[in-house]
């Protein structure tokens, strides 16, 4: 495994761990042409299979964490 791939796997695990903390009642509509709201398990599945929505979820979660760390929010 290259260093870049290893880094990506770590990021994916961080996001999966965050998603495991989400309550099962959570609902979000994100990039679905069917207009469905996804629950926690749907999000985890998308990240695990590295779909385009899964990639987007990883990017969103990491961007939020970086912004939070920089003090962008209260």
């Amino acid at each position, binding site marked *: 495994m290259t260093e870049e791939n290893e880094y990506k796997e770590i990021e994916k695990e961080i996001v999966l761990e965050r998603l495991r903390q989400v309550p099962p*009642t959570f609902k979000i509509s994100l990039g679905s042409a069917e207009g469905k709201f996804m629950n926690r398990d749907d999000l985890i599945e998308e990240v695990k299979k590295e779909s385009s929505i899964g990639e987007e979820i990883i990017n969103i979660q990491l961007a939020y964490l970086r912004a939070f760390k920089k003090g962008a929010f209260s």
Partner: protein
Amino acid sequence: MNYVLFSRPKHDITMEYLFYYSKELVKLTEDSGLKAINLEKEGANKKTIIERIIKQKPNLIIFNGHGTAKTICGHKNEVIISGDENSEVLKDAITYSLSCSSASKLGPEAVSNGALAFIGYKFDFAIGRDPDSEASPRRDKIARFFIEPSNILVSNLIQGKNAKYSVFIAKEKMRENIDYLSTTKDFPDAIHYAPYLYGNHAGLVIRGNEEASI
């Protein structure tokens, strides 16, 4: 007379939420002395929308719909505007696309084909949903954190503010909502919604003339 065209499909649950929240924008348009061309439900189809744009040349075009990097869709996901086919119909208008990703490629293409400004999202647009609302937009206390900033943006455009100011005010509201969701103890799920609203904040962009107004 300035015209504002709304495309408001309602064929799935996400579109129902956008449909509900955009009702007040149609009313605001009429109350502001502008003419609203309200194409809703089955009326949000390609033939009708393109005909009305060509005939009435709206100054402001508001799309609710699913989308991709190069398309905006209407009723039952019919492609209304495609970067490969007809983005020139947005010529001379300000467009706001409340859809996923369309500002990434379609927006710049529309501007290069004469659109005054294209405001939209370069990533997927997210909407959170309150599990206790039973999918009723009116009762949903989560969805409003996601959709109200978008309504503030459109309200400002309708009232003659330019694209830059309208987006600035919308982003300020998003930041306020992200702060709230990140820190509130009012309901336990709140913090889990904050990253997705941050995604909307990061994805909202203006293509074309930032000073454009109606």
